């Protein structure tokens, strides 16, 4: 079973956002992590591999630093990594998907996993686009995956419930929280990861058109919310007063 995992390096969730001289989001000094949803994807790939024979390749498009996230996946137990270096290119989700799909099309695969959303500027669309370009079926936001006889049965989250979907392989799946509990890399895993293959390619060498479709015009920060009032009094008294304020002052109920 050949399993590919698309993974993105993102800002740590604690990161505060600031702008650089061009009014764009400044990544300087920000701690980078593997997109949390992609951790579930990597874990699921490893579980599938461990339940039979298989090989897990992790792929990321990004700057040279994205290697760290790939190494983390190798340390967790993935076998190979592919880094698609974007350099100075401005990419949107269309461009990212085109690049990923091109790199994937040069590999063998039965299962492609990704996160359902990147927590940075992600928009829960890259994997859907990849599936479309590769012309393989996709099941999004999954919380359970079972593989047998060239088929996959996935449970996906829908509003107010869940849905069980069957597809033939190869197929793309995107991971939601609840799919599994990602493992931490062991010391041994970290040592091993250093010797595992990391294939680096420049995006410009892939021979695909990466002109973005979406143009970012400007960035801004949300208005700082001000602390409001603390409703005075003993708990019961304050609760009574709050009920009144919500109706008469805030007019939200």
């Amino acid at each position, binding site marked *: 079973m050949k399993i590919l995992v698309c993974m993105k390096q993102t*800002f740590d*969730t*604690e990161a505060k956002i600031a702008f650089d001289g061009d009014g764009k989001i400044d990544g300087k000094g920000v701690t980078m992590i593997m997109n*949390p949803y992609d951790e579930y994807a990597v874990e699921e790939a490893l579980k599938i591999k461990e339940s039979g024979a298989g090989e897990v390749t992790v792929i990321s498009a990004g700057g040279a630093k994205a290697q760290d996230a790939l190494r983390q996946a190798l340390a967790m137990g993935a076998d190979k990594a592919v880094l698609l270096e974007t350099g100075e290119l401005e990419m949107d989700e*269309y461009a990212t*998907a085109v690049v990923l799909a091109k790199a994937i099309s040069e590999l063998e695969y039965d299962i492609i996993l990704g996160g359902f959303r990147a*927590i940075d*500027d992600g928009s*829960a*669309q890259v994997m*859907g*686009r990849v*599936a*479309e*370009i590769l012309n393989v*079926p996709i*099941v*999004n936001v999954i919380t359970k995956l079972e593989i047998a006889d060239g088929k996959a*049965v996935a449970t996906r*989250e*829908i509003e*107010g*419930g*869940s*849905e*069980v*979907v069957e*597809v*033939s392989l190869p197929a793309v799946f995107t991971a*939601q*929280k*609840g799919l599994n509990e990602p493992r931490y890399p062991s010391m041994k895993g970290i040592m091993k990861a250093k010797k595992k293959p990391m294939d680096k390619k420049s995006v410009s060498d892939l021979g695909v058109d990466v002109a973005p*479709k*979406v*143009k*970012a*015009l*400007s*960035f*801004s920060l949300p208005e700082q*919310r*001000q*602390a*409001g*009032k*603390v*409703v005075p009094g003993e*708990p*019961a008294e*304050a*609760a*009574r007063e*709050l*009920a*009144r304020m*919500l*109706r008469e002052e*805030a007019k*939200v*109920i």
Partner: protein
Amino acid sequence: MAKGIWIFAEQREGQVKKVAFELLSEGRKIADQLGEELAAVLVGKDVAGLVDALGEYGADKVYLVEADALENYTTDGYTKVVADLVKQYEPSALLLGCTVTGRDLAAGLAQRLETGLMTDCINMELTDGQLVFTRPVYAGKAFVKASCPEARPAMATIRPNTFAAVAGAKTPEVVKVTPDTGDIRQVIKDIVRQISTRPELTEADIIVSGGRGMKGPENFKTLEELSDVLGAAVGASRAAVDAGWVSHSFQVGQTGKTVSPVLYIACGISGAIQHLAGMSSAKCIVAINKDEEANIFKLADYGIVGDLFEVVPVLTEELKKVMA
């Protein structure tokens, strides 16, 4: 030249999602400014009965796409029929609600149409004839304004509750489409619905959320009682989810759901940056926490410093009276 503002009128089990009405209402304004037509795309099985409601919220035209194979949403089936329709009529914009389905459909559709897609948008405006969308990034820690200058249709998914749904009477022209649903590779084996009378978290006007301060799963009943009085949805912090008290579908925050209700009541939640990312665009935030130093008070409009087990039951009783 591409013309027409299209709204994907999401329905499930014969009910149009509220967000579709919100998009029609706002789309109406944009269409009028551009002098273009506003159309709804309604896909499903036996859904013709929903056409009038779409007209009521402003649609000039409804593309009615019915087939047995379209009874349940599938990525392949819906992508195929909507993409075919778009290719035939070439609208200038296609808007969808940012729901599980809207998100799923929009991604593949945008790729098949080789166009740009801006997701989870919280505003849309016309600037020099271009639709400019505002979308939160880094889970609401920043915003980006973006457009799709050349490719058509410009596509966006819009977060529920962003626009008001305003009814105005229209009788839409109905275009019946006999679709080719193609080869649908996703086979739906089962649909499991939690029976709940409460609204969907991402669509709710009011949310009552509990955190580690709830102490245990049994105490979420207290929040349910409060939410029932308010017609609210129940949410949770990651601490409550990770403790196994409620399912992860309740989680609000950077790695959970992003919500923009009118009223958000946080009970026993400290206000970690990852939680705030998911709810700080709520219009009014109430915090109930026994620690007066809790970070959540820094952005709450109303705070009560106290034991939630004393405060919430009284609040529930009081609201019953106020709402009566």
